[in-house]
């Protein structure tokens, strides 16, 4: 990767006895969307807070747009936007007043702050509500204003901490549209989310975080490929379960899981097995099938596999 715009190396942070980050590594390419994905308490928000200069790391190093987040915090602040869970707008002001105020605080001259506010309101369809007090906004509108407020100075990197948590599907789509537009402009986005479909839809690169560490990273497709595809066969005759299992083990070279009465599932590496070959083989052996399919795993499966907890494993064992 050439010159990542966000670079995190071995970052540690603890609050009292809680280790929020234990050696997080991260590299984000300029102009991409990186989805930071992880269960609650994985350290996603802490990572964003350190990168946005709101929290000091205990150890390790992070740079944003080439500036160290600790030593050059002011330079970082000039290049970033932050929205989501931990950023907010003033509810007692109108949307327009909020944007003008943030513009002034970003040291835009008065006239520039005004025109920038109007421009953003126009572009993100908030002009109609612009002169209403934010307290009267819907949840989706407020979140949109929150995101817009972080765009005043056209940040090089935008941090969105769970921007759609708690929103209805329509508001969520609005935020997604808003993000796609930003990315089209070339803004780098670091998005934390618990929603896999959100990461799947928007992110070029997904980093799965658990226990304060990055445990996997790649494009959504690459991550799905790490646990491979599965070949699912449903037999027409349950009696053929055993011979069919042997046959499939032979063809694919891996151990099939049989789920009586009539289902067999085999993990396969991508492109290693031709569906036609499998069907022919079963046909030659005189085994009739009701259904054969190669199935890509969902990001949910990847996520669950990667973040499996001991408690979850115990549960499996009991079952």
């Amino acid at each position, binding site marked *: 990767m050439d010159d990542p715009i966000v670079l995190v190396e071995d970052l540690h942070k603890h609050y009292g006895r809680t280790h929020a980050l234990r050696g997080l590594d991260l590299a984000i390419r300029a102009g991409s969307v990186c989805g930071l994905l992880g269960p609650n308490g994985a350290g996603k928000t802490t990572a964003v807070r350190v990168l946005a200069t*709101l929290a000091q790391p205990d150890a390790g190093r992070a740079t944003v747009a080439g500036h160290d987040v600790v030593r050059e915090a002011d330079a970082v*602040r000039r290049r970033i936007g932050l929205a989501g869970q*931990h950023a907010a707008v*003033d509810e007692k*002001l*109108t949307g327009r*007043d909020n944007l003008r105020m*943030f513009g002034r*605080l970003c*040291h835009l001259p008065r006239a520039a702050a005004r025109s920038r506010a109007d421009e953003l309101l126009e572009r993100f369809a908030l002009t109609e509500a612009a002169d209403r007090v934010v307290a009267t906004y819907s949840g989706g509108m407020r979140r949109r204003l929150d995101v817009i407020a972080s765009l005043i100075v056209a940040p090089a990197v935008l941090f969105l901490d769970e921007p759609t948590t708690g929103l209805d599907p329509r508001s969520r789509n609005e935020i997604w549209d808003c993000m796609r537009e930003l990315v089209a402009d070339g803004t780098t986005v670091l998005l934390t989310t618990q929603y896999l479909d959100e990461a799947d839809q928007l992110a070029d690169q997904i980093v799965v975080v658990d226990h304060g560490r990055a445990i996997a990273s790649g494009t959504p497709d690459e991550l799905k490929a790490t646990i491979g595809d599965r070949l699912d066969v449903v037999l027409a005759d349950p009696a053929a379960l055993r011979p069919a299992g042997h046959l499939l083990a032979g063809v694919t070279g891996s151990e099939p899981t049989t789920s009586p009465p009539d289902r067999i599932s085999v993990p396969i590496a991508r492109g290693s097995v031709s569906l036609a070959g499998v069907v022919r083989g079963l046909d030659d052996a005189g085994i009739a099938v009701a259904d054969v399919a190669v199935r890509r795993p969902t990001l949910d499966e990847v996520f669950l596999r990667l973040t499996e907890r001991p408690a979850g494993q115990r549960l499996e064992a009991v079952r």
Partner: protein
Amino acid sequence: MTTRLRWAFADGLTLVGREVGHLRRAPGQLVGSLIFPALLVLMFGYVFGSAIAVPGGGNYREYLMPGLFVMVTVTGVMATTMVVATDAGRGVLDRFKAMPVARSAVPLGWTGADILIGLFSTFTMVVCGLIVGWRPHNGVAATLAAFGLLTLMRYALSWAGVFLGLVVRDEETADRIMPLVFPVTMVSNTFVPTEGMPAWLRTLSEWNPVSALVAACRQLFGNPRPAGTDLAWPLAHPIPATLLWSVVLLVIFVPLAVRAYRRKSR
């Protein structure tokens, strides 16, 4: 360094403008802040005042008004605490901190805005006072000096408010601790002379910074004030005492507030 200072000042002004925006968008609050002083004058001037005699004679409402000026000044600390706690609790503060806003600008903005609000509520109280017969008697300079002392003390206290707001960090807690300000204003010479209090309470009252300010105002306005010889030092020399108390409050709370603001990085 000078550019930094200039930005800190400019950012502070922007944040003062924000508070003005609040008042403009919520005129209901303005009405509320007009009614409160009127009610105080009514309650203390006429209800309690009808039963309280000023030692050495004099009109109780003339005696009372400096106390009420001080009361609205001191209770102003609650407004600042509330604003700060709300900003901290709702994440507005995080946004400020992730922007290239000068670190000192945000506390300067809060406390600067409070001066404006203080002038406004004092003005309201003055109008109420004039209506019920209170008058300053010592000329323009002394009168302005009294309002200067009130403003200074309010400013010092608003830093205490910033510190408190940053410590509690949520508006509900702030709301619960607020009534604690009232005893501070009551255990003093605000409403009744200290001479009749039990000895320990009298000592507490006379050394209460509130009392020094009230006495200073009475002196500067030429309103009735007890001139006993056995008064504690702050009441015998209320003007230097008030200046001293203000400086002490500033010296304590400015660093505490700034430190709490910086440390709020969680």
